[in-house]
């Protein structure tokens, strides 16, 4: 069942968003643009290497994932748009290959390392 869910998720999200099955999907917060398609895997916005034409430092022929994400996020519903500025935690590498739908339902994708949350929060 769980494997079936992962297979369906990959079949849907791979062709549309280039999904790599990180298992902790944040698409709705990033203008429906997958940050894992950024060659540097950045989850919190564009690096300082974006080219004058808005293309990627690493792949000169590819538009910067984050330039696209930021542009698209402006057209999202307000809550999603505001979540663009959230500080997203480091990727949990154990979730690679698992279904983010399952991890969303179980709350597994919200788990962060015990030391991540600031004392003031």
């Amino acid at each position: 069942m769980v494997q079936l869910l992962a297979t369906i998720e990959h079949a849907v999200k791979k062709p549309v968003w280039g999904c790599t099955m990180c298992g902790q999907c944040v698409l709705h917060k990033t203008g429906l643009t997958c940050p894992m398609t950024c060659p540097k895997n950045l989850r919190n916005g564009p690096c300082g290497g974006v080219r004058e034409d808005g293309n990627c430092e690493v792949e000169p022929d590819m538009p910067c994932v984050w330039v696209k994400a930021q542009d698209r996020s402006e057209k999202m519903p307000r809550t999603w748009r505001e979540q663009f500025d959230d500080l997203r935690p480091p990727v949990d590498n154990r979730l690679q290959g698992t279904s983010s739908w399952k991890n969303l339902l179980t709350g597994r994708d919200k788990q962060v390392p015990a030391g991540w949350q600031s004392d003031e929060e």
Partner: protein
Amino acid sequence: MSSLAELLTEPTPARPVITAECPPVDGGGLNAISEHVRRLAPYVDALNATDNAAAHAHASNVAVAIALNRLGVEPIMQVACRDKNRLALEADIVGAALHGVTTLCCMTGDDVTAGDEPETGRVFDMDSPQLIRAANRLAQGRYLSGRPLDPAPPLLIGAVENPGAPPYAYRVRRGLKKAAAGARFLQLQICYHEDRLTEFTNLAESTGLNRKVALLPTICLVKGAKALRFMNERVPGIAVPQSVIDLVANASDEREAAYQLALEQAKHALSLPGVRGLHFADFRHDDTLGRIVADLGLPTVRGAPDSEAIAV
């Protein structure tokens, strides 16, 4: 001699804060570093120990930062996300702090394709806002795992931002994210489009970014038009307008024209709201830093380090 942490919390700053890049070192023992220190230290509050700058391997950020500290200059240890996973980054920060290196500058890092070993693997296990938060947590006495560090290292955490790269209007929001993660200063990438730096600082003022972090725009000291062309073509995220390159290239004295360009940029940057100081990258390797600091009417920060301190 005030530390950078003290300078950045002064309620009414007496003068701009000046930092500079310590050029990468490969060999020659500590003498190689002390030569740079002798030349640059009199004019700066702190020197950056770079972390495999431009994706080229050099003596490590930790080793150079410790050496700078021994030579009597506050090091700003750059920490980049490109080459190390989160365990190694935490270990470097904690290890350097053990030697009294407590000022950091967190960055994503140029891609490996910008360097001379492009066949290597890229790590990027964390991104820079995550690294800033992780460092901030170390300063609060916790590793990412939650395991305590006691005593916690008293870190001053900085970061970088690039006002000259798209998406321009978003760059200040990214700065705010870094401030929220724990950054207290931002060394801004060299920006050859004055209007972009102006726009960035205006937005920083209206959003309050400049009250959360000290803004330190970078000024590059170059020898001539060749370096400007190189930056424009080869350095990720830096664009130099053709008119600026021509201005230097067509001058009768290219070296002097390059200096005047840097001086104008420095004056312009210091005139902008919320700019707390300047960060210099010296590619001339001569006495230019002293000249520009004097021309800006800034005081010499300290005497040249004495030979005792240098003879390590």
